[in-house]
């Protein structure tokens, strides 16, 4: 392994993970107003001091950074200036009548009818609000009259924030070192690390290169499932990403025979008891799950304090 990872292509299982985050997006004045006006089926643009109109509305000019002067209602007709098709959806740049800019949106219909300079008009989607997708897309409108920009003295109040979510799935490779560590946990219920370059204590998780000396690590070693807390925090509030309901103790534990800290949880019933009795130096033991081990750190259900 050392100088290059395994060269033989192997079909290895992966570790599935997902990062799923909730957001509240702040569209700001221009986009917030544009989105708020979607329910009125009006397309809001921005007029700048130099007279240029840009749609969808922008707080600042993309070309020179000047702030917008006023909101306007722009026509729902325009022309295609460029197009492509991605996953079966035609995506085009649309230049609405009276506007200086182009923006991307969908074109509904047949690709054969799409060409540069093609006249189009917006098609609305009932039931969609607060999204640019209230405009379902643009449809071919050969004879659509050229529209004009009009003032919009009293637009809807801008939307302050929008709920949004982004979920990113992953298939992580274990690699040779984590791979064996999890295999050992699954198959034998033991925690194995590799020795440091110059000592007997094991690095957990195991790795090819010793962090401190940047030299190859030593041989594999089984660590005990007992150890000593070297750092901890009593968690008594809820937050996103927790795997366990509070209260519990987040603990950094050095297993006997290891040189590095393992992060795990200690179950507690009573916060006051934990404050007095759990801290750096406290001896703990792993409590393994009943049932079949899966080859994961969760096969150790928790740690508990060794009463001495």
């Amino acid at each position, binding site marked *: 392994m050392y100088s290059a*990872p395994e060269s033989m292509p192997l079909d290895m299982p992966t570790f599935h993970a997902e990062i799923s985050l909730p957001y509240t997006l702040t569209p700001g004045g221009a986009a917030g107003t544009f989105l708020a006006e979607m329910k009125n089926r009006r397309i809001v643009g921005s007029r700048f001091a130099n007279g240029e109109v840009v749609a969808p509305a922008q707080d600042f000019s993309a070309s020179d950074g000047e702030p917008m002067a006023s909101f306007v209602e722009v026509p729902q007709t325009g022309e295609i200036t460029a197009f492509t*098709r991605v996953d079966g959806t035609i995506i085009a740049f649309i230049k609405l009548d009276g506007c200086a800019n182009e923006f991307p949106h969908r074109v509904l219909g047949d690709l054969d009818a799409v060409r540069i300079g093609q006249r189009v008009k917006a098609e609305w989607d009932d039931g969609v609000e607060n999204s640019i997708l209230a405009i379902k897309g643009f449809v071919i409108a050969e004879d659509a009259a050229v529209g004009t920009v009009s003032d919009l003295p009293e637009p809807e109040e801008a939307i302050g924030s929008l709920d949004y979510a982004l979920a990113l799935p992953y298939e992580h490779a274990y690699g040779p070192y984590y791979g064996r560590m999890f295999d050992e946990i699954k198959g034998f219920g033991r925690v194995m690390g590799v020795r440091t370059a110059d000592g007997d204590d094991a690095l957990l998780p195991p790795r090819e290169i010793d*962090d401190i000396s940047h030299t190859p690590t030593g041989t594999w070693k089984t660590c005990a499932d007992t150890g000593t807390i070297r750092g901890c925090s009593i968690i008594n509030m809820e937050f996103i990403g927790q795997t366990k309901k509070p209260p519990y103790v987040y603990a950094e534990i050095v297993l006997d025979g290891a040189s590095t800290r393992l992060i795990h949880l200690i179950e507690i019933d009573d916060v006051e008891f934990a404050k007095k009795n759990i801290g750096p130096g406290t001896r703990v033991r792993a409590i393994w799950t009943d049932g079949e081990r899966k080859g994961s750190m969760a096969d150790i259900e928790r740690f508990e304090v060794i009463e001495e």
Partner: protein
Amino acid sequence: MALGKVAVVATAQTELRPLWGEAQHIDLISAVVTSVFKGSGFSIDDVDFVIDSGSDVLDGRSISNCGFLGALGAHRKEEARVEADGIWALQYGVNKIRSGASSVGLIVAYSKPSESLVENYWASQVEPFYQRPVGFSQRAAAGIQAQRYLADRGCSERDLAELAARRWADAKAHANVQIGDVPDAEAILASGESALPLTELMMARPVDGAVAMLIVDESSARRAGNNPVFITGMGSGTDCHAYADRDPLKLASLEGAAAMAARAAGWSAQQADVVELSAHSVVGEMLAMDVLGLDEGKTAINRSGGALPADPIMATGLCRAAEAVRQLREPQLYGGGAPSRAVVHGAQGVGMQNNCVMTLEV
């Protein structure tokens, strides 16, 4: 006080593959960080700072470099993460040495796009109110760029396929890239539609891999185990975020970056012997060649195959630099000659919004 000169004294790269299923990021990083010192005349103890490039979104963890510090050789050293293509990490490192603050720097870039959905990564780069909902993203930008380019230059899809086929063949012949059968122009045209008129094989192929580069000041370069390659010019630039607002038939930020690098070097890309370009699609590569005024008959362009056959997103530009170093040092591997000047290029962002250019000389 004049700024100091900076040399590349060693590079190392793993094979670039569509899937490194049996290695973690740290395994790939350990491999190149260990290899880069071999025969270089330097060891990890000589390194003053480590700068690494990677993407938290692609890696699936925030501040992912924190988990890689040991593999990076950064234990108790100055370390910084550049959340951009590796060529910007190199630019940062060169400036640290030029300023006199440090002597020896290790630059590392890595990528494992196989672990995530690259489409999500691209989608995360576009604006969420107007662009993301309608499906505008990296691929759509490349398709629109291509449609306009073909209309303007009067070339055909076959022209695109032929260039892409040459790049795949070059990668197979010269670069450390995992490739089965080299696709010919027919196969490239026949591959599925990615973003009309571009087919899948006309887009850069995401691959896994890592690359490391050791850079040093001029006096340290005297003890290098191999010919030092000097970085004599650098330039970078950013275009506006909305792709629709850019000049569609130019890469304005590449133009500016190339001019900046040429001013420092005293020569421009047309006078280079070797050019290594990054592009997100075959048309992006053609545009870059046009902007730099390059002629494939006169200059060796992307003898490594470039980014089309192998795009380790976030490491691509640093791979270009490593490839150019190899071509300047070992021209016999590329059919001989005595090349002395190279231009390397990195690009990132939707529709190649950001560009960075460097000049290398031996």
